[in-house]
């Protein structure tokens, strides 16, 4: 009798595990369909997403360069991890993990025992305009933050005063804070879900958030004098309408990115309107279920996150001038200029309500067979409303192999005398033929094994928006000088000892005085003749950053240790239970 009971319990347990795995497996399948060709061999380079075989831990990655810390700590995170996992594999793992974790988090957050409702939630979280648009524009840290938000609401929402901190929280915070804007969204989610009327809780939340965001926060504060951005650029980055939908309606359905070039084609047509109507109707029906099955704190946090995320996105659309003023007047205010990034905060509530609406519809169907068919249709609806999100966002995410001529730059750059490099043409973006003619941030500064000064001006709609890096401005002025000797001397004076020149048809590359260390069909590397001056390192930045990195590493080490102890403890308990 006892053996039979134990056998039944084990079977039930195994079935429970299998059911819990379904949302993970379904999210993985959806992620594989969305990424499609991007999962094949090679690197996917798209707008801001640049991955290289071996990213160096340079001054900008560490936050001690002269540029604003836009890639802090994401570049350092990659530079360290690609010592263990090759960059190409790491990129695919990160993109896959972001989508799978997001889908599974939504399925768990929805608070329903119905597998169909969980799968609808996972589908809506993975297959939507926000994911498609941020994938094409290459905002992978934003997608990691997006994946973390539902888990933060879940874990912090159940974290009662006096109880132990959820073991996964520190690592979730680190992963969700790999850039300034996503760090901000993660902080909002944690405070909304984890804050209680308890001083110690507030102190603990503050310490966790400071440690998780310390690298970009300290680097940003140290650059405070230059940390204001162009007001006009803030207006360009405002939440935008998509096709027939004005900005606020596009944002309601998780769309509304500023860059029309990365918006899936169907968002410009009637299908986007259909999708919005379906989502809104389902969400309104879902409201009938209230917050049943969800921890009250998690529910309140999801609502708060939606209000804040949607509010900022709509503010960016309605009063872009205010966002512009904020970016131009308040150091760090530019974090909010791409206002639709914060729609990551709205996704959990939207997805939960839509999935609960699908649950209400399912409950109307009594017959088991019809119920299965209805469930399949409900799961398919989000996919059918955005069909061009599939297969690498309709072929926009295609991997490439770096041409060997470009890879050869790494070795040649090591022979340049001490100093920084300037990469020409001195513009931040490229549309290389070897990248299928797809726009991407200039990958050469990441391919070379040296610090390189990068032009941070942006050309949008044919109009140039000024950058913030004073060294980049100085390099631009030096390059504008009329003679090879004058350009060379001016670059040397500001600490640039070498130039890497890419060949482009119809462009007469400027001349310099120096030795060509490499000259192939794509690139020339020149060591400038003369000794380079100092790079103008900022002692305040260099003094403050080590403390920030130590705080960040302590959080990672503490989080990892907690998780290991947790796993060991569970294994011991399980073994004891089996033995008993």
């Amino acid at each position, binding site marked *: 009798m006892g053996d039979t009971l134990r056998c039944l319990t084990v079977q039930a347990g195994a079935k429970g595990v299998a059911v819990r795995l379904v949302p993970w497996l379904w999210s993985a399948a959806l992620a594989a369909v969305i990424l499609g060709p991007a999962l094949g061999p090679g690197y996917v380079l798209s707008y801001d997403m640049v991955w290289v075989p071996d990213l160096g831990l340079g001054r900008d990655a560490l936050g001690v360069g002269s540029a604003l810390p836009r890639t802090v700590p994401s570049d350092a995170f990659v530079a360290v991890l690609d010592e263990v996992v090759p960059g190409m594999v790491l990129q695919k793992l990160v993109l896959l993990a972001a989508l799978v974790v997001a889908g599974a988090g939504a399925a768990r957050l929805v608070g329903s025992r119905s597998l169909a409702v969980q799968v609808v939630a996972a589908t809506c979280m993975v297959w939507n305009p926000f994911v498609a648009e941020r994938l094409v524009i290459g905002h992978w840290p934003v997608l990691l933050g997006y994946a973390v938000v539902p888990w933060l609401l879940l874990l912090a929402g159940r974290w009662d005063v006096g109880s132990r901190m959820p073991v996964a929280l520190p690592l979730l915070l680190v992963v969700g804070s790999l850039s300034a804007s996503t760090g901000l969204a993660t902080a909002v989610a944690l405070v909304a879900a984890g804050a209680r009327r308890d001083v110690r809780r507030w102190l603990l939340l503050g310490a966790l958030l400071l440690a998780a965001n310390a690298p970009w926060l300290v680097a940003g504060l140290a650059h405070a004098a230059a940390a204001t951005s162009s007001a006009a650029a803030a207006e360009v980055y405002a939440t935008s309408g998509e096709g027939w939908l004005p900005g606020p309606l596009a944002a309601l359905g998780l769309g509304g990115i500023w*860059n029309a070039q*990365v918006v899936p084609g169907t968002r410009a047509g009637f299908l986007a309107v259909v999708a919005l109507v379906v989502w809104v109707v389902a969400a309104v029906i879902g409201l009938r279920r209230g917050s049943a099955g969800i921890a009250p704190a998690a529910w309140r946090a999801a609502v708060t996150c939606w209000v804040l995320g949607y509010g900022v996105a709509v503010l960016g659309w309605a009063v872009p001038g205010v966002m512009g003023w904020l970016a131009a007047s308040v150091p760090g205010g530019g974090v909010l200029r791409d206002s639709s990034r914060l729609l990551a905060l709205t996704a959990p509530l939207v997805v939960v309500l839509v999935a609960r609406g699908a649950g209400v519809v399912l409950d109307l169907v009594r017959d088991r067979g019809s119920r299965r068919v209805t469930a399949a249709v409900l799961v398919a609806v989000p996919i059918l409303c955005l069909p061009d999100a599939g297969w690498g966002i309709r072929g926009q995410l295609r991997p490439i192999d770096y041409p060997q001529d470009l890879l050869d730059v790494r070795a040649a750059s090591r022979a340049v005398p001490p100093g920084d490099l300037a990469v020409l043409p001195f*513009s931040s973006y490229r549309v290389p033929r070897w990248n299928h003619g797809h*726009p991407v941030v200039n990958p050469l500064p990441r391919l070379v094994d040296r610090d390189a000064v990068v032009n941070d001006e942006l050309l949008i709609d*044919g109009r140039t928006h000024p950058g913030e890096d004073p060294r980049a401005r100085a390099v631009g002025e030096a390059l504008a000088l009329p003679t090879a000797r004058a350009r060379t001397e001016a670059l040397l004076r500001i600490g640039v000892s070498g130039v890497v020149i890419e060949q*482009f048809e119809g462009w007469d590359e400027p001349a310099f005085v120096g030795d060509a260390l490499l000259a192939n069909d794509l690139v020339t590397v020149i060591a400038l003749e003369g000794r380079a001056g100092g790079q103008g390192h900022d002692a305040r930045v260099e003094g403050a950053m080590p403390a920030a990195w130590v705080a960040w590493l302590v959080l990672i080490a503490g989080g990892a240790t907690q998780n290991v102890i947790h796993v060991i403890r569970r294994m011991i308990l399980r073994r004891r239970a089996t033995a008993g």
Partner: protein
Amino acid sequence: MNNFLAPIVSVLAGGALASAGLVGLISSQTSAPEQSPANAEAPAWDYGATE
């Protein structure tokens, strides 16, 4: 009547086609390609477009 109208219609249709062809040709030769250097001296590429 037909003998009178046919040449006029032919001239109008032919003129319209020729004008459309000419405008299209000039437009395709003078407008900047979607992703091309801003100028030959300092190439720069659009990061994005809001429309």
